[in-house]
């Protein structure tokens, strides 16, 4: 560990939050339908969308109508992507000559990109054509991210309303977020990245004759365009098998800084946008501080853990001062790798620039734990702040129980219905993660996919379902997941982890919107001070984290103690 490493980690985490603030103000203007400087260019396009689709963007929908539109849009996106994947072989722009993919892989991949998970059961450069990557996956990278943002926009309207009815128009929120926020930022980032060396080619590959006379086929893709949105949209699915560890996708320390910031910047922006829309900047600042404290602690822990002497290096008598370099790139080293790992698992991104499977046992545990907290640090665009607000509601509810008062949050009474839906959203995560993992751990068909045995094998299983349910998409890549059992159950876990919380948030919005907006009284618990931040962190750790402790003990934690023994032997 050194000062440079700490500075690089602090820079990565800090810049994302700082840039998120101005973008959040802009995002809030977009949600509210205020004027933006892009109006002259985009207004006509936006209008065309509404006219062609036959929707009235000014008509506010009730929560059921909003949720119905959301589900219909996602279902349609799923069907289209499934079809593209299956028919890849006969579709154009397939210079690689790939066939259509198998039904279970098409199901898994289509669900994966529609739910903003971007779990990759396939190796990108060996499976998917340029057409599939561009026309299939890139589109979902945009609209699945925008779908998450719509949830937060609807929830914000519910908090600001005084005995209101509608939570907004799904089609307007979707279109405006995609066109005004995601598209222009992605375009700028993509061009900058291309300038810094990220490949953007329509050719299948380049052929090289190496200095020693061998031949090398170098796979190429229109990478920069997809990379920009896979990071900004908090998607995470790269065009290459190794994702952002690939030197053509992430060639320099500067590109890794830019793309690591891109992972979180719009997630933070959605926090600030929510605060501006609800006129509750101080309360949302408390949520941001709680998230930063947890994420900063996790990032620091990862740096300390990955700088420890790795058992294989100790056993072989190799230099250990630079940390655990297995599965890491020389240009990044430990600091840029762990900063990324914290960003990608704290947000629901899931792209990787180092291989988490080869992390030290507790390093793997930290990345899993970040996902198990419910993807709220800062999580997906909008979906993160929405679930964080549910956590805050649970925190005021717990405090209300202690003092015997009906709790309020942001001027709305929090009652039984809201708490039920909030708990549903929180509990579906352990249900899916632990439920599927328990079955997989005893099923020969599932165990056949594991590369590592013993506790690390359990970690592979646990990581996979955690990642799928959290809509993260990163992996302990030792697991060979492209098999019917894994593709199907991971697909189901992604659906549960995406749509149960989404519907729960919209149901909460529906309940809150009809309530009167209250002015704070002397009995109202202040929700912006250090006391509340502490309470919130407690609720997040206990509700989100503690349920996973027994499972983590059998995986990474027991592996850690094994490791201490192994290291002591040399």
């Amino acid at each position: 560990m050194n000062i440079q490493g700490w500075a690089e980690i602090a820079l990565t985490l800090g810049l994302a939050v700082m840039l998120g603030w101005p973008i959040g103000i802009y995002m809030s203007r977009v949600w509210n339908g205020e004027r933006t400087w892009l109006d002259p260019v985009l207004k006509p396009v936006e209008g065309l969308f509404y006219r062609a689709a036959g929707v009235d963007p000014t008509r506010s929908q009730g929560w059921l109508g909003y949720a119905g539109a959301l589900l219909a849009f996602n279902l349609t996106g799923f069907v289209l992507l499934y079809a593209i994947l299956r028919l890849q072989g006969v579709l154009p722009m397939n210079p690689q000559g790939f066939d259509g993919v198998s039904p279970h892989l098409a199901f898994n991949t289509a669900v994966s990109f529609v739910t903003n998970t971007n779990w990759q059961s396939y190796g990108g450069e060996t499976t998917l054509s340029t057409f599939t990557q561009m026309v299939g996956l890139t589109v979902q990278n945009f609209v699945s991210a925008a779908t998450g943002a719509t949830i937060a926009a609807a929830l914000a309207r519910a908090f600001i309303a005084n005995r209101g009815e509608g939570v907004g128009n799904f089609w307007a929120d979707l279109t405006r977020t995609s066109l005004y926020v995601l598209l222009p930022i992605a375009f700028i980032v993509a061009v900058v990245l291309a300038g810094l060396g990220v490949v953007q080619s329509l050719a299948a590959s380049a052929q090289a004759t190496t200095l020693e006379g061998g031949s090398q086929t170098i796979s190429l893709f229109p990478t920069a365009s997809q990379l920009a949105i896979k990071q900004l949209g908090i998607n995470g699915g790269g065009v290459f098998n190794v994702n952002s560890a690939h030197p053509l996708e992430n060639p320099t320390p500067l590109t890794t800084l830019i793309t690591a910031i891109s992972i979180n910047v719009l997630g933070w922006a959605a926090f600030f946008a929510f605060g501006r829309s609800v006129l509750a900047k101080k309360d949302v600042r408390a949520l941001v501080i709680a998230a930063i404290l947890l994420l900063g602690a996790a990032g620091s822990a990862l740096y300390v853990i990955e700088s420890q002497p790795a058992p294989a290096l100790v056993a072989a008598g190799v230099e250990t001062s630079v940390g655990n370099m297995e599965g890491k790139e020389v240009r990044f080293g430990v600091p840029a790798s762990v900063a990324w790992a914290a960003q990608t698992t704290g947000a629901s991104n899931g792209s990787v620039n180092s291989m988490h499977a080869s992390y030290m046992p507790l390093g793997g545990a930290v990345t899993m734990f970040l996902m198990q907290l419910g993807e709220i640090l800062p999580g997906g665009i909008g979906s993160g702040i929405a679930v964080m607000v549910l956590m805050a509601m649970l925190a005021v509810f717990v405090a209300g129980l202690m003092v015997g008062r009906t709790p309020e949050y942001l001027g709305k009474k929090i009652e039984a219905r809201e708490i039920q839906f909030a708990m549903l959203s929180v509990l579906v995560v352990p249900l899916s993660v632990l439920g599927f993992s328990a079955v997989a751990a005893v099923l020969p068909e599932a165990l056949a996919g594991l590369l590592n045995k013993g506790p690390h094998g359990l970690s592979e299983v646990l990581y996979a379902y955690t990642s799928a349910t959290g809509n993260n998409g990163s992996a302990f890549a030792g697991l060979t997941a492209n098999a019917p059992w894994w593709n199907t159950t991971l697909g189901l876990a992604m659906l549960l982890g995406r749509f149960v919380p989404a519907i729960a948030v919209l149901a909460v919005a529906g309940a809150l919107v009809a309530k009167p907006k209250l002015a704070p009284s002397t009995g109202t618990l202040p929700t912006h001070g250090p006391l509340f931040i502490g309470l919130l962190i407690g609720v997040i750790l206990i509700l989100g984290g503690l349920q996973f402790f027994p499972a983590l003990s059998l995986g990474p934690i027991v592996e850690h103690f094994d490791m201490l023994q192994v290291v002591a032997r040399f």
Partner: protein
Amino acid sequence: MLNHIRPAVVMIALFTGVLGVAYPFAVTGVAQTVFSEQADGSLVRDKAGKVVGSALVGQTFAEPVYLHPRPSAAGDGYDASSSSGANLGPLNPDLIARVKTDADALRAEMGAAVIPADAVTASASGLDPHISPAYARLQAARIAQARGVAVQEVSKVIEQHVEGRTFGVLGQPRVNVLLTNMALDARFARPAAEG
């Protein structure tokens, strides 16, 4: 939900047009015009104009006259159409055995030197174009002997190729293996008997 089907279908079609076709082609157009070198994969050519690889992608080197790269798990090693890490857990016996074998081999070759970690660990991509300066310096003696030149001459070429941290804080110091090896070939004649 049925009344939502029409807007859903129309919207996904329009988004596909704007985000799936117009956006990537616009980025491709700009990138290919302004940054065509990088957009095509930063390919490097020899004097005859033949492509010898990409400046960003590692390749296999086994001959003693060259800097050797890190172990690779991409295909049979540095297969740039099949990127992959080794993905072995930290206690996996295969990993521990592999690192020990590689380290012993390096020690046998270089004497009782300290082996840098990157020399015996597989990278995340299997295509890491770099090695640490320490590992590069360790190989100078072997290269000098194989090429029949002074160690200082080889060291000079290596030191010229040490890249520092960006802005003094980002990333790690490193040496690009392919570019350094091309510089070695340009600086010293390759021994004819090599093979």
